[in-house]
């Protein structure tokens, strides 16, 4: 009873006409930007932060969440029809999705990805509904040392599970940690890294930083990489997958959903990583792996189920522990802070309308997406025709004016321009801005809890191992960090012993494989 009452009253929030409108707006915007190659969910959510400031907290998060999981649906459409992934999490779908379209099975591919997305999303919301309250209850016992370990794990795991090199992600993360220290010292209030500039006295504004790195930086980078879509006209005939299609892909949908749910919980895991992992799993366990890359329906079903499941489950660490695990969650963390609601284990009890309203809105949003995605396919495909040369200036101007409205500060506009340049240069030189923004958000939590912990432990860092929960968390983190490393090591080793018999140069070649 304790659990069902607030959950049901969450539906009252979610079904309120205003919020229904925000769910609908969120998923439609999400699908649109999912289709547009120049604009992803991270950039869009960053751009909309100033607007969410004007509406109520639950509506704001309902809208932003809708954009995130909506984008997972939208990105699929262009991946399948045009071999043009609108969104990073659907890149892997192009491989088999586009092949299916070329064989005249575009409808089946889109149909199965919509159904898979719906199932993956819904399984994940069920998991969120059941798991989050338990986890939040558990996290109430956490003290500063546990939070310090969690935040540190967040920073380290994001760096190693990311899509670029671990060292480069760590560099970006350390810069994020340093940027977070700008402004007054959290304990002593003495200024740090302000260099006497008035605008920096309170540190760098999160919204300006995120809009610069993700919004402007992304646009500038894409300007150079303007995607000229080779618009082949794929015909979408029958959008319902046949019985045979369903029989072939239902296992993939199930595995993808569960895998996506689990990866979404991990720091650094999100739509991108989960879709790739799900594809790899299907290919590895397939009886005829050679079908993959030639229009295997499992190659569409698994990643599409996984990216939606992950998009949803990544809300769990944020809403129960207050630890964002990927850039989108970092932005939603920022949006909650803007509203004066610190995310953490108390969120469920203190702001049940936000927690349950958002969770329950996801059930509704997924139904909207299932209903909308199929009939609107034709319309969405036309959106790809919107050229970046038209989209980019509009988005840039929205960024500039939007950031001004948050604090009515001209200084923030310069911050956006500065971080726009930084974001552009980072992408040019092979860095990802994601770990930077995430570490920026986690930085202040990490510093405060780290200093409090040291005080508790009388300055002895070994104290972190003396508390059962923090020691377990350290162990888990090390496990997650080291297992992939060990697995790769084993694989290299096996290859080495296989090949060294054949040629003397094999050893050198395999070692380089594992480095690159």
């Amino acid at each position, binding site marked *: 009873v304790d659990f069902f009452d607030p959950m049901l009253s969450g539906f009252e929030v979610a079904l309120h006409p205003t919020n229904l409108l925000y769910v609908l707006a969120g998923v439609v915007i999400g699908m649109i930007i999912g289709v547009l190659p120049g604009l992803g969910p991270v950039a869009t959510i960053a751009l909309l932060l100033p607007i969410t400031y004007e509406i109520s907290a639950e509506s704001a998060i309902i809208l932003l969440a809708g954009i995130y999981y909506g984008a997972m649906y939208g990105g699929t459409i262009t991946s399948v029809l045009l071999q043009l992934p609108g969104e990073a999490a659907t890149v892997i779908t192009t491989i088999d999705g586009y092949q299916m379209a070329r064989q005249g099975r575009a409808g089946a591919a889109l149909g199965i990805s919509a159904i898979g997305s719906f199932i993956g999303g819904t399984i994940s919301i069920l998991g969120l509904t059941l798991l989050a309250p338990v986890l939040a209850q558990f996290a109430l016992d956490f003290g500063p040392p546990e939070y310090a370990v969690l935040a540190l794990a967040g920073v380290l795991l994001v760096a190693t599970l990311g899509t670029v090199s671990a060292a480069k992600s760590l560099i970006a993360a350390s810069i994020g940690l340093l940027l977070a220290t700008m402004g007054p010292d959290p304990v002593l209030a003495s200024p740090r890294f302000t260099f006497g500039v008035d605008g920096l006295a309170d540190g760098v504004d999160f919204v300006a930083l995120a809009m610069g790195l993700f919004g402007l930086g992304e646009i500038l980078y894409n300007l150079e990489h303007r*995607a000229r879509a080779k618009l082949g006209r794929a015909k979408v005939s029958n959008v319902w997958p046949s019985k045979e299609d369903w029989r072939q892909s239902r296992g993939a949908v199930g595995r993808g959903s569960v895998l996506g749910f689990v990866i979404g919980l991990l720091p650094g895991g999100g739509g991108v990583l989960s879709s790739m992992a799900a594809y*790899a799993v299907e290919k590895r366990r397939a009886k005829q792996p050679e079908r993959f890359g030639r229009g295997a329906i499992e190659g569409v079903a698994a990643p599409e189920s996984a990216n939606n499941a992950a998009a949803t489950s990544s809300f769990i660490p944020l809403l129960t522990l207050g630890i964002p695990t990927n850039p989108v969650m970092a932005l939603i963390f920022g949006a909650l802070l803007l509203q004066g609601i610190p995310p953490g284990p108390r969120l469920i009890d203190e702001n049940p309308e936000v927690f349950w309203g958002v969770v329950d809105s996801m059930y509704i949003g997924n139904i909207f997406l299932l209903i909308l995605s199929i009939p609107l396919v034709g319309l969405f495909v036309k959106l790809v025709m919107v050229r970046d040369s038209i989209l980019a200036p509009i988005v840039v101007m929205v960024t500039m004016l939007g950031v001004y409205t948050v604090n009515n500060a001209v200084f923030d506009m310069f911050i956006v321009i500065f971080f726009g340049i930084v974001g552009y240069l980072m992408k040019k030189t092979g860095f990802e801005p994601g770990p930077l923004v995430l570490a920026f958000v986690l930085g202040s939590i990490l510093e405060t809890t780290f200093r409090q912990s040291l005080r508790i432990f009388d300055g002895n860092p070994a104290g972190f191992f003396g508390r059962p929960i923090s020691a377990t968390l350290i162990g888990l983190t090390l496990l997650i960090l080291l297992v992939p490393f060990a697995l790769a090591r084993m694989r290299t080793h096996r290859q080495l012993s296989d090949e060294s018999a054949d040629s003397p140069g094999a050893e050198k070649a395999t070692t380089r494989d594992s480095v690159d």
Partner: protein
Amino acid sequence: VSRPLPDAEAQPEDGAGLFEEEEIPRAGPVGHLVAGIVPVLLGLFCLVYSISLSVGTPVNPGPGLWPATASVLLIVAGLWSLVFERHRRDGEAFTRGGLGIGIGIVTLIVYVFAMRRVGFEIPTLLVLAFWLRFLGKESWLMTAIVSACTTAVFYLLFIVLLGAPIPRLTFY
């Protein structure tokens, strides 16, 4: 550094870059060296600055202890990347396209100053037009339509709907 997923490695993470991969050349050795050294130098600067803030003791940390820790992390990661990843060619060369981006950034800086003086309407219209016509190579007709409509929509959105106190055009 190895990854658990071989497929993940083969895929570019950015959708738009998927087709342009061969068009933008990879950065040369000098470019990579600079990209590797800058983080280390930044880390050294931050470390020196943090120490100047006073590090304190573990029981009683000064304001500089935490930034110093982060700086050390930055230096270590930077050196790691510099030494062990020098064969990774994940940077891009700066091409002529970069010039347009530089010009675009300059227009934005001018925009901020102009907006404060004459209100946001005219600068918004002009910057949009500049980006559309000269950076985007759109036709004059398209430029006129898109920039005028966008400015009007912004006025409706930010001024009428949100009531944001953005500097506006005033008639003396």
